């Protein structure tokens, strides 16, 4: 392999949170400590030296980067304090930037300088909606949001921006998938020692692989293996299922309205209960993660990339809960809070392909790919 070390890429990774990467001395403690690291193609030791050399082409097509669940066991035991966990997190951010479309978006989404802009966008959009349709906040009566902003508008917005996000994510996914599987072209294939090219091979057909990967994701089996940060397993589980529950509730809301003609489900309705439980789970999960990041020395720090996603999600949970409480209390403040909530939701969904949210799909694909190619770690699920 003709290589050229690329200090620019090194600097990019450092900027994205991998500032310790140069400290690695290649002892491979990380690869051994990591419970997710496969026997034949362990990570992240090799990823660390690639990162030190700035071997962009190798790293950007490396599924191992996504197999990492950032438990930071490796960082805890790293004798050089090179924090491989942080470096891989930075690489994941860099990969999202690489594959999402248009790529400049990732750069600006993940640049704290533009944060006000990205808050301003939903504000302007909602403001425009209000002024164009001359919407006003009701001053009395039962708190029903559609009395302020008709639900159809919100739904339409959801479909447009959500759909756009999904489409963009699909593009990223497609590009990532190509990078993982195609040989030649502008990127090179990862060659394990024996020189055998990585192909979609191994004991499993890809569809099965996806199925099993989904199963693993739903069960959080990989998360569970991490030892240093056991709390993260529970926290992520709460966040994941909380978010999923909220998604299901939102979907059921729509179905209830258009299929069954029930625009407002009562609070005791199972779908609503599910949603409320989801909100609480999401809130608890986020709180745990944030607490962990602030207090646990082995999980400390995190980059803007991490915090942007985490705090957006937290904002969605908090504003959602407060808004609902205000509504139930009959306060008209609920309308204003609702707007804030919508802003948060917008930020979460619309920027998803460029934010850490995208890990959902990249990791899923990488896991399925690892299964299909027989490169998954042998762990006692």
């Amino acid at each position, binding site marked *: 392999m003709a290589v050229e070390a690329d200090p620019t890429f090194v600097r990019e990774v450092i900027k994205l949170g991998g500032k310790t990467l140069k400290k690695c001395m*290649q*002892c*491979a*403690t990380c*690869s*051994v*400590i990591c419970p997710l690291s496969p026997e034949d*193609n*362990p990570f992240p*030791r090799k990823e660390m030296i690639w990162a030190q050399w700035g071997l962009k082409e190798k790293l950007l097509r490396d599924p191992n980067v996504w197999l990492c669940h950032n438990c930071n066991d490796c960082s805890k035991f790293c004798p050089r304090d090179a924090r491989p966990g942080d470096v891989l997190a930075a690489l994941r951010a860099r990969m999202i930037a690489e594959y999402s479309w248009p790529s400049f978006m990732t750069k600006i989404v993940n640049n704290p300088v533009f944060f006000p802009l990205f808050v301003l966008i939903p504000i302007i959009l909602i403001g425009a909606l209000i002024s164009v349709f001359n919407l006003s906040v009701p001053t009395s009566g039962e708190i029903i949001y559609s009395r302020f902003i008709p639900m159809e508008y919100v739904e339409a917005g959801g479909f447009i921006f959500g759909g756009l996000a999904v489409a963009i994510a699909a593009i990223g996914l497609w590009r990532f998938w190509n990078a993982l599987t195609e040989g030649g072209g502008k990127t090179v294939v990862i060659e394990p020692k024996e020189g055998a090219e990585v192909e979609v091979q191994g004991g499993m057909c890809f569809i099965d692989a996806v199925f099993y990967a989904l199963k693993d994701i739903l069960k959080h089996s990989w998360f569970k293996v991490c030892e240093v940060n056991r709390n993260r397993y529970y926290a992520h589980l709460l966040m994941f299922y909380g978010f999923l529950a909220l998604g299901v509730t939102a979907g059921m809301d729509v179905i209830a309205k258009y299929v069954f003609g029930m625009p407002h489900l009562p609070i005791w309705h199972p779908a609503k209960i599910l949603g409320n439980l989801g909100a609480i789970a999401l809130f608890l999960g986020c709180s745990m993660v944030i607490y962990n990041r602030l207090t646990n020395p082995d999980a400390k720090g995190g980059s803007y990339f991490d915090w942007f996603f985490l705090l957006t999600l937290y904002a969605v949970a908090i504003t959602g809960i407060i808004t609902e409480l205000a509504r139930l209390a009959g306060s008209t403040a609920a309308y204003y809070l609702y707007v804030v909530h919508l802003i948060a939701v917008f930020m979460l969904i619309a920027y998803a392909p460029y934010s850490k949210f995208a890990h959902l799909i990249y990791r899923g694909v990488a896991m399925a790919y690892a299964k299909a190619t027989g490169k998954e770690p042998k762990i006692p699920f």
Partner: protein
Amino acid sequence: MEADILVIGGGISGLTAAIEAAETGYNVVLVEKNPYLGGRVVQLTRYFPKICPPYCGMEILLKRLQNCKNLKYITMAEVKSVSGSAGNFTVKVEKKPRFVTDACTACGECVEVCPVEIPNPFNFGMDKCKAIYLPHEMAFPQIYVIDGEACDKCGQCVSACKYNAIDLNMKSEEITINAKAIIVATGWNPYDKSKLTNLLPDHPNVITNMMMERLASPNGPTKGKIVRPSDGKEPKTIAFVQCAGSRDEKHLPFCSAICCLATMKHALYVREQIPDAKVYVFYIDIRAYGRYEDFFAKVSSDENIQFIKGKVAKIEDAGNGNLIVHAEDTSTGKKVSMEVEMVVLATGMQPSTAVQKIEGLEYDDYGFVIEKEGIIPCGVARKPADVASSNQDATGAVLKAIQIVRR
């Protein structure tokens, strides 16, 4: 007490410094915290790369020491503080009670009657000795010592001693030494393995390199037979874990300079005693610097000694006394898991002054002593080093000291 030069520490560096200084013609006082001189090296079975016994050089050193009329040594003495400046230091020393006087002839009658057993400190507790004991065969001075904490003062030894050499009422005393220059040769401690939580440090068959030295030594707990502690079985497969604590920001951030070579030496101990044993050395970099490379070449040519580039980062209990070591062989990029019968952790050298600081000296962040006018560290008090370079350094330290004395 007055001295031209005070040497703190009676290990190989301190002994060398004290003797070289005395032989050059200066009045020297040597203080040592152990009940015997010789420090760490007398616990070693052999030196690399010659595989020669440290007692051999110790015999010469002790002979020279006894010929130096201008050298006084104090054992069981700990330096508490240093004050003053070059040319005029005042040093406070606490001399702990030995409970046995110079009248002791080392006949050994007392040991026969002593009813109290203690874990033998010389053998890292791998066997027992009596509360009154001679630390080892060549202990100098050849005077017994009583472990004051373990002794129940039953007085049986007092009546057994024909030479009235035991005084159970001995008290600790403070000594003040005025010296013109101070050589600090406080040496090192083996890094505490219990801190290496990922390496199963509490398993009996996970031993340290220093414990290996005692195991292989004819005056060790097994009379020199290399067996694993859990069941006394002769290990046929042994894994050596290099950099156990060294080159590690969470433990010893520096390289301990000697562990690679010590491990090679241990591999030879094993191969000599157990001809069919297999030895696996897991390392990050083999640091056989200088002509030590010859030694590495010799050891690595043994096909039963295998060197694997990759640090052992995890050890598991296999249940049957065996252990499973895990590493990534970074030269093949594959993980290696191996079941072995014994594991030796190459724990590093922690400067003694990292743990026990002497007031009035300056230290760097790792606890090594910083040289300043009139206070000269040598050996491992200055930096991690092997015996030969410690002695070089100790000899050179004398020169810096006599510059102060002569001016």
